[in-house]
């Protein structure tokens, strides 16, 4: 037992050599690396994962976007044909719908989420119950949830069928139009706005609210002058998440919207699958990524996240 302990000790000390003790023989390379730069070494797995799983596909997509149309190899002479094709046809309509609906979804969710988030953090007596109700649907696939709405709202669906069977009336069903797409997007992306916003609201010090009232502010003035500015980090993060996710959304328009509008993500999918034109799809995807990045950066620059989050200044 004692011999075993001694050998363990010597093995351990060779793994973690005392930096002060004079080394008789130079330690192996790995040990020296570990001593000199433990940080980069520990970050290695994540770095590899990001390189293989994130950066490589991205580079692949961008490279494909410069390949001749309808080709499947990366070794041809680069060309701008795909971008020419995109700009000369009507893809801007799909881009427009995606941006518009993402923006509308964000605004709609800002308005809907504020009272819920406020109640969740401050007034409701059982906030856990509501939180659970809001989180549970996230365990079900987005498509399944949207199909649920299709079944509910379609002609002879749950609502219409019930009305016909019970009252013999035909209800106009609000399916396959733009408002229902917006509804679907708001429905799917609600948690991404709500929870960051609730976090933002919970960061407002109660004494600031009381002080504002004490200095004569009305409910509305407290909201405008104190609550919204102080909850801004949460509001900003929620808006960013919602907008970016909504910009790339596809199922809502496909399932609930029928063919009434085509979102850009749908066009990309068609190019890659049905049309078998990977370079075109890659060009559209690259443009979408650039558009998203440009909008996010513009928003971040205006919001000054540094100031919002680093309150220590």
């Amino acid at each position, binding site marked *: 037992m004692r011999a075993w302990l001694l050998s363990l000790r010597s093995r351990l000390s060779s793994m973690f050599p005392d930096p002060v003790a004079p080394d008789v023989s130079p330690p192996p390379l790995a040990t020296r690396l570990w001593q000199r730069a433990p940080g980069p070494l520990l970050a290695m797995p994540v770095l590899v994962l990001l390189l293989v799983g994130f950066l490589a596909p991205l580079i692949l997509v961008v490279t494909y976007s410069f390949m001749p149309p309808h080709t499947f190899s990366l070794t041809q002479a680069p060309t701008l044909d795909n971008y020419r094709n995109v700009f000369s046809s009507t893809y801007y309509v799909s881009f427009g719908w995606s941006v518009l609906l993402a923006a509308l979804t964000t605004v709609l969710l800002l308005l809907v989420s504020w009272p819920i988030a406020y109640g969740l953090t401050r007034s409701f007596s059982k906030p856990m119950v509501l939180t659970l109700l809001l989180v549970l649907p996230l365990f079900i696939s987005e498509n399944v949830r949207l199909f649920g709405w299709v079944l509910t709202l379609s002609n002879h669906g749950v609502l219409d069928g019930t009305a016909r069977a019970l009252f013999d009336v035909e209800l106009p069903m609000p399916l396959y139009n733009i408002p229902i797409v917006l509804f679907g997007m708001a429905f799917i992306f609600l948690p991404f706005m709500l929870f960051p916003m609730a976090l933002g609201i919970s960061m407002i010090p109660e*004494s600031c609210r009381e002080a504002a009232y004490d200095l004569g502010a009305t409910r509305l003035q407290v909201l405008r*002058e104190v609550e919204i500015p102080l909850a801004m980090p949460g509001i900003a993060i929620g808006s960013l998440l919602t907008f970016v996710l909504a910009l790339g959304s596809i199922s809502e328009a496909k399932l609930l919207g029928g063919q009434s509008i085509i979102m850009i993500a749908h066009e990309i999918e068609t190019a890659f699958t049905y049309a078998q034109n990977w370079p075109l799809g890659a060009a559209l995807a690259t443009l979408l990524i650039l558009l998203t990045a440009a909008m996010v950066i513009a928003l971040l620059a205006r919001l000054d996240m540094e100031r919002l989050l680093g309150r*220590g200044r």
Partner: protein
Amino acid sequence: MAPILELVDVHKMFGDFVALERINLEIHDGEFVTIVGPSGSGKTTLIRMLVGMDQPTTGNILLRGERINEIHANQRPTCMVFQSLALFPHRSVGENIEFPLKIRAVPKASRRARAMELLKQLHLPESFYHKGIHQCSGGERQRVALARALAFDPEILFFDEPLSALDYRLRKTLEKELKAIQRSTGKTFVYITHSIEEAMVMSDRIAILRSGRMVQVGTPDEIYHRPRDAFVAQFMGEINRFSVQKASDGTLTDTDTGVRYQAPTRVADADGTALMIRPEQIRLLPEGEHMDNVLSGVLTQSYSLGSRTQYQVSVDGRTVLVELLGRANAGVGDAVRIGWPADSAMLLKA
């Protein structure tokens, strides 16, 4: 003159718990009144009602004779400097000070002018106008919070022990400044604190709160020299306390040691069972001198308090505090005689 603020039988319950019991208090225009109590005495509950963030269960709060119980904080012409100061972290110093004016839609130029005036009055440089709250030190934030409250131009300014988080020296400076500002503005200040020292320095009158009851109200001198009971006397500073029983001949017998004391001629409470003497009223007696009350003991400790020296004298296994200007001739370990004139002691209800 009619009081500016009057509390009439104010009673506050939280469920079955009595937080405040029949509080009566009158505060006059231009007065600096401090409500003092240990933590849990109900002072925060009281100030929240005075400001309008809470309501009494029964009783009335009258502002210039009008009942204001149910009037919400944002409708009252009073305001408060919070314990946490509650400055708006997302606004600059200038915007913080201008906040109450902005609420009243005062034009920007006059808002700014008033903010500059207040910065000057509170000894803050004008360059602070654009500073962020996080760039200010503790003392500077105090001044900004006070400036913001003064910008509101309240009829009564309440303070919820805003100085408690500061270090000793800064607190002393700000206490005096606050008193000076109160004098120069002529406003009514109502201050809440757990520190009797703070109350003594600043106040015209002090109200002492103990477990939801107003024990005594009076000027600092009155309360110091004529405390109503043993609690107030002890709250007002270090004091020696002997439990006594009154004999039929008027003399007092110590219930622990059986020693007899000569009673003070003027007694606030005839049924008093606590004989209390401040350390500075007791003297070390030289050989041969006699006094109404004399005890023998051993000097066990001495502490220098700067201009004064405090001694601990062990008498019959009990420690008696004696405080002298300068130093005594005796040293630690010496046998000493201590004494006090009967009338410098107080006989109070325990």
